[in-house]
């Protein structure tokens, strides 16, 4: 009696396995081996990288496999992988990761022709990476909870008790480390640690800047430390009439308005150097920089002559704090400071 019923189970199991097998076949059929393929470790926003990669693939016929993750996580991985890294190109949102990998001799020198495309202060001083885009540190604030006149003129003021319970920060976002590095470089370790401890007492902690700006927009927190472009990206997502927050730039080149440089490099271990160089050259070409300026990315193109998204105020009006990439360093002291302050 039971056998027939059990055979039905068997048939079902067979059907499931068969379905899986056919899916494997479908998955395998996608990969073709005829063209050259490079691997991009992408710490930038996936939609931006994707748009640029598509244009590059169309133009050159070179396939680009993209692994997107947090820029710091990818730098971790490249450090771990060393010479065996499968990556050919590393694109990230901030310069310190690139400086760190340069110190470990993991990045190849870029052709001078590529480096010349952007002003030299956006480049690696040793020629190992090139700046692609710029962002500026800023505050998102909710006018219902705090008036514009009450906003601080210095980033360090946010650590004072006046801001208790009003602040949102994302200490594990890859944009936070360079800010800590900049405070460290300009104000010293004691001031930086005191500032972080003050922030910890005042803030609700979030996983990333996107959540910080969304929280301020909803009115759950008065003020959030972000990079300027997250505010514009939120406006695209929710629509201008749903924006209940505003963007505030620190005046007078205060360190809170740190200019962050997103950059790209070719790995020293790359076995596709020519193709990888071509990709990095494409990143700073007028074509790619226009893709960057035209979309919903809201970063400033590093290449002169490509106007930024018209929604953005010009950099000359924003007056960002410019800290040289050497002075800003490699994130390691900032990472240790985050631990000491109990933020990670």
């Amino acid at each position: 009696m039971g056998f027939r019923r059990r055979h039905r189970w068997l048939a079902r199991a067979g059907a499931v396995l068969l379905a899986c097998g056919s899916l494997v076949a479908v998955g395998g059929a996608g990969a073709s081996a005829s063209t050259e393929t490079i691997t991009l470790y992408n710490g930038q926003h996936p939609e931006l990288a994707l748009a640029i990669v598509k244009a590059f693939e169309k133009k050159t016929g070179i396939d680009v496999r993209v692994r997107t993750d947090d820029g710091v996580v990818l730098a971790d991985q490249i450090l771990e992988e060393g010479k065996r890294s499968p990556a050919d190109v590393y694109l990230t949102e901030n310069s310190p990761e690139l400086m760190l990998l340069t110190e470990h001799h993991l990045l190849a020198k870029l052709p001078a022709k590529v480096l010349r495309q952007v002003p030299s202060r956006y480049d690696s001083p040793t020629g190992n990476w090139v700046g692609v885009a710029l962002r500026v540190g800023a505050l998102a604030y909710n006018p219902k909870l705090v008036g514009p006149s009450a906003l601080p003129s210095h980033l360090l003021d946010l650590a004072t008790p006046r801001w208790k319970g009003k602040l949102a920060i994302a200490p594990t976002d890859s944009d936070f480390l360079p800010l800590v590095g900049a405070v460290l470089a300009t104000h010293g370790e004691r001031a930086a640690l005191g500032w972080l401890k003050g922030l910890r007492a005042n803030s609700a902690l979030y996983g990333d800047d996107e959540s910080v700006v969304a929280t301020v927009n909803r009115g759950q927190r008065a003020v959030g430390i972000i990079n300027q472009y997250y505010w514009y990206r939120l406006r695209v997502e929710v629509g201008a009439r749903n924006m209940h927050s505003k963007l505030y730039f620190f005046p007078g080149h205060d360190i809170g308005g740190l200019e962050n440089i997103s950059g790209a490099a070719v790995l020293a271990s790359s076995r596709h150097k020519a193709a990888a160089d071509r990709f990095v050259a494409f990143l700073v070409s007028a074509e790619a920089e226009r893709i960057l300026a035209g979309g919903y990315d809201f970063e400033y193109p590093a290449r002169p002559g490509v106007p930024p998204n018209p929604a953005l105020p010009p950099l000359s009006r924003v007056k960002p704090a410019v800290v040289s990439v050497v002075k800003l360093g490699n994130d390691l002291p900032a990472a240790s400071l985050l631990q000491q302050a109990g933020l990670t």
Partner: protein
Amino acid sequence: MTATALAGWLHGRRRRLPLVLAATSVVVVALLLAPLGLVLAQAGQSGWATVWSTLDRPFVATLLWNTVRLALAVTALAALVGTVTAWLTERTALAARRAWAVLLVLPVVMPDFVLAWTWSSMFPGIHGYWGAVLVMTLHLYPLVYLPMAAAFRVADPGQEEMARALGLSRLQAWWKVSVRQARSTLLGGSLLVCLALLAYYGAFEDLRYQTFTTAIFGELETQFDPGVASSLSLVLVALSVLVLGAEAGFRERGKLQRSGPMAERAQRPLPLGRAKVPALAAVALVAVPATGFPVFVVAYWMLAGGSSTLPTAVSLGAATAYTAVYSALGAALATALALPVSLLAARHQRKWSGALERATFITQAVPGIVVALALVYLASHFLGFLYQSPELLVFAYAVMFFPLGLVAMAASVARASPRLEEVGRSLGQGPMAVRLRVTLPLVAPGLVAAFCFVFLSAATELTATLLLVPTGAGTLATQFWADAEQGVAFGSAAPYAAMMMLLSAAPAYLLGRWFDRGYRSSRGSRPAFEVVA
């Protein structure tokens, strides 16, 4: 193995221990336990001074306190909710109780990070400790509900009747007999809640509640030393092994005595009378927020989200295909690995084969992030060709969910008695024919159940997948996460959540049918699943 046993085995007096089966099982168990050693190795690589300075911080004390207070509250609440709902659906004349029984189990197929996201996206005020208590209780109570429902269903009414006959009141009899009988089941289920809680990541990130898993990801995102993350995961492993030890202890004590061979019989459901409406309200108060609400929110964001303006790196179709393939292969591998261990444990009951089986449950106590970190370390240092490969992700799924496969197939394997094979042989069939026509049909339902159970868990796995997913690929869980994590792109995240639920529906249905059958035909043999899993 003692000398006499060895001699007996050599002379073929006891049932011969198949060397191949035993050797395979030992290899499988060694494979499963390898990640634990690797974590130690990686932490050690950064130097024990680093490990110590990572652990000896106020921040770690905060994490520990967060973990302990959450575990206590959620375990207690899940025990309460699971027991009350199980009792109402199994022992009382609750209206539409079969339907409630299905609805109450459904949170099992709802990933923790989707449930947390549905709540926090609609009510941003739900976060932190109380948010985590609420969401985790709603997500985890089925781990208590399932075994308690089973216990109430097969409970021996004779004992309660006897207690009544000895002069106890109805309430006293219920408390002293039924509740006492179910006590060990309840403790077992509660400890599983505790164990599961330690491993979650996505939900806590959604709810902004810091635990060891969120801190491990935080360290990966800010510190340039994977050894720091490994040091934190050592604490997580220690906590998990502690809970698992407690669970094993309670399981040993949880053996039931029955009053006779026919003790299991149909019970008359308790009429609810005036409690009818409050009972319905109680069940609805659990099922609506745990199942109805998240399904509603996913549908809501799909229709009203409108934030799908950004192109996605991995389309819904591709993510579905990747998820289906990786999960199916992981499930097939876990099932294949579990079969020899299960056969060995069922047919050659020796102390060490039982210990072998038990040892694999340690992997259940090891959170996904720890397994993933270990495998990344292994592949990047020693097995470069496996690094970022689909094979490694599939292997991770098999390691993580192996115990589920083992639990799901135990009953079928036990039923496939060697005596039936002997009967087959005596009827003139060859050994191969016996395996195909007797053993396989008997074991097959267990294999399907194991496959479904692992598939279900792998298809919604987030933590390990985030670290191990091959370059250029993405699963439904990681794509959902990429959108939902940003706190705004709800409309584009929702379809991935919906697809995860759809993909889980078929195996969940098969599994439900199978466990239901297992309960009904559990007379004589081991029940379909013992504590739960």
